[in-house]
């Protein structure tokens, strides 16, 4: 029992308090920027701290689910010390492949949903494997190749949709999901649209992520290889194999990122109106913000979704929408700083308590 109390106190002292302080500091810093730019600071703070309406809440939940999926894809690589900046490209390819498959209606009814998820995961995985294989066999930095592959993915998706899709207004799109394969959402408010059914994927992936990393031999190997590849090698873990597997899992999760929106709202794929870009990059920031933990990622994803959703409100009080991105960037920065400070404080306190106990024993010995 006292163990639990201590853990909770530790979490509050070293995680929650620094986070809240960091967010407050970020808001103040952004308010200063708003003030310098000559926009109304009062309006900014009011808009940022206002309670979202029902429709906004639904959007926040939906968006948070996609951001969280993207963050888990990034986080599993972070734990292995790989910087998978290619989540963006992987989820574009996953979305495109999934949309073509679902729209074709090869598999009937609700089974189409499941099959589409598998196709999207495989496509995302395949795209991630390009960077992984280049890294393992040729020593190409995964950061460089993945960044390039992000551009290739976007262009390839655009080309495929243009070649094999159909024209809708000025945009080319894939076929629409047959109505029998469109899942119902979770109705929370009667006056607002449903929360997307596949938002639940974020929860499933979160549970799987925590279990995989914390409770399996593979998770242990992954974290070990992440700490030190040489140490891992010395302990019989093949780092190259670990890179391949980790990237494969990451790519598969990335393939799922856009699926909640696809099945919940757009039902077709086409850039720019029937797709949402940039989630891969947001996921990187949120994984960083959430310190690669499930709870942290959910918190970060919700915060980012909340901030983006407030952008309309900001504009109505005369503050530019770029301020939202500034806030998001400053939040990440502040959280990194706050956690570094809290880590040092924690280390010093531990050293002090160890020294005190050591001092006590050594004095005891001397006496």
């Amino acid at each position: 029992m006292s163990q639990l109390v201590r853990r909770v106190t530790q979490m509050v002292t070293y995680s929650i308090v620094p986070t809240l302080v960091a967010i407050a500091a970020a808001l103040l810093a952004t308010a200063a920027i708003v003030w310098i730019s000559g926009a109304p600071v009062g309006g900014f703070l009011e808009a940022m701290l206002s309670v979202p309406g029902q429709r906004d809440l639904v959007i926040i939940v939906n968006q948070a689910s996609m951001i969280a999926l993207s963050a888990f894809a990034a986080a599993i690589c972070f734990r292995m010390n790989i910087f998978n900046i290619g989540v963006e490209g992987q989820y574009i390819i996953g979305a495109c492949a999934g949309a073509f498959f679902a729209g074709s209606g090869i598999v009937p009814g609700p089974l189409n949903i499941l099959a589409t998820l598998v196709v999207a995961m495989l496509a995302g995985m395949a795209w991630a494997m390009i960077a992984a294989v280049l890294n393992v066999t040729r020593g190409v930095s995964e950061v460089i190749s993945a960044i390039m592959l992000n551009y290739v993915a976007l262009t390839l998706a655009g080309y495929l949709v243009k070649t094999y899709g159909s024209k809708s207004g000025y945009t080319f799109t894939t076929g629409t999901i047959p109505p029998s394969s469109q899942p119902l959402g979770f109705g929370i408010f009667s006056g607002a649209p449903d929360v997307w059914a596949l938002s639940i994927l974020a929860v499933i992936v979160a549970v799987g992520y925590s279990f995989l990393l914390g409770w399996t031999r593979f998770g242990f190997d992954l974290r070990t290889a992440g700490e030190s590849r040489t140490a891992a090698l010395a302990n019989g873990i093949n780092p190259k194999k670990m890179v391949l597997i980790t990237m494969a899992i990451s790519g598969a999760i990335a393939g799922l990122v856009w699926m909640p929106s696809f099945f919940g709202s757009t039902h077709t794929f086409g850039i720019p109106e029937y797709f949402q870009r940039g989630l891969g990059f947001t996921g990187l920031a949120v994984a960083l913000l959430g310190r690669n933990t499930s709870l942290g990622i959910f918190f970060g994803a919700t915060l980012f979704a909340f901030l983006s959703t407030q952008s309309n409100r900001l504009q109505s009080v005369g503050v530019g929408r770029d301020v939202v991105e500034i806030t998001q960037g400053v939040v990440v920065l502040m959280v990194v700083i706050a956690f570094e400070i809290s880590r040092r404080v924690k280390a010093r306190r531990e050293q002090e308590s160890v020294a005190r106990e050591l001092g006590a024993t050594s004095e005891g010995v001397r006496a």
Partner: protein
Amino acid sequence: MRHLTKAAVLVGAAAVVLSACGTAADNDDSDDNADGQQCEAVELEGDPQVALAYDVGGRGDQSFNDAAYAGLERAQTEFGFEGTEGEAASDESEEVREQRLRGFADDGYNVIVGVGFAYSESVDKVAPDYPNVSFAVIDGFDPTEDDVNCNVAYLTYAENEGSFLVGVAAAETTESNTVGFVGGVNNPLIQKFEAGFKAGVEEANPDAEVVTTYIEESDPRGFGDPAGGQAAAEGLINDGADVIFHAAGASGIGVFDAVTSADLWAIGVDSDQYLTASPEQQPHILTSMLKRVDVSTYDFIAAAFDGEPLSGYTEFTLADEGVDYSTSGDFLPADLVTEIDDYKQQIIDGDLEVPAEP
């Protein structure tokens, strides 16, 4: 009490409008796509309050969005209202776009313009919930043709006609018999520019060849990528092009840079780009194909103030000066201007058909 009566009248009017829509959709005999014809004008509640929702880039892009703002400004001086504005982000979701429009409507704005075709879907979803708000989408289209919203106006342009005229200018100016076209994004809208331009070149100088390149396949960033525009233009210059027409929004600045350093010609787009170009670039901007987004924005707002809000498709063509070409800088010789004006008249008179697809 007066308000109540007014409200009753409005509800009644809305019912009439809605039922009119119903029959229009049910009959489904209007193959000519003039859906708006069967709608009655939207009844606005109170005075018109105008809101503009910009596309990615927003105000200050020296191109598309700024042209819409110019139309708003003109209407503001004429009718005296304040208005509000909002702007899209390149990676926002469809839902956030919808919320922007709902936010305007909930705040009492009843004349709402979505600048750019990306608002088509959002407006289509939001409009039915606000029957007494008049919406417009610039470059817009109705994604659900069999379910028409009577309170939505789609403002489109005959970009191919304007591009035809600058195509003639390019064909008569080129010395290498090769002219270039840089598109921002390879979508059917920009292909319309390409098609008209090619037709104009072909008409005026059958020996000339048109080389074409697009900056992006589908990514709207192709409209905001000057470095990409420059690279694209340099590629065309390597292919021998000495006059380059761009339809690439803010990426066009890169095209201007490329022709300036190679001492060749460029043709601007949307607004009269000679006027906003830097002094180094100015001597290289032959002409601009004008797409008068300002005119249509103003027309739409003015119609609302006149109590006759627009509805359905309205195409702005050469005939009503919705598209045109510019002569700023006086680089076009007088006989060429006469030739272009002659083609212009032929198009207006219907003697010359300009293709809309390449």
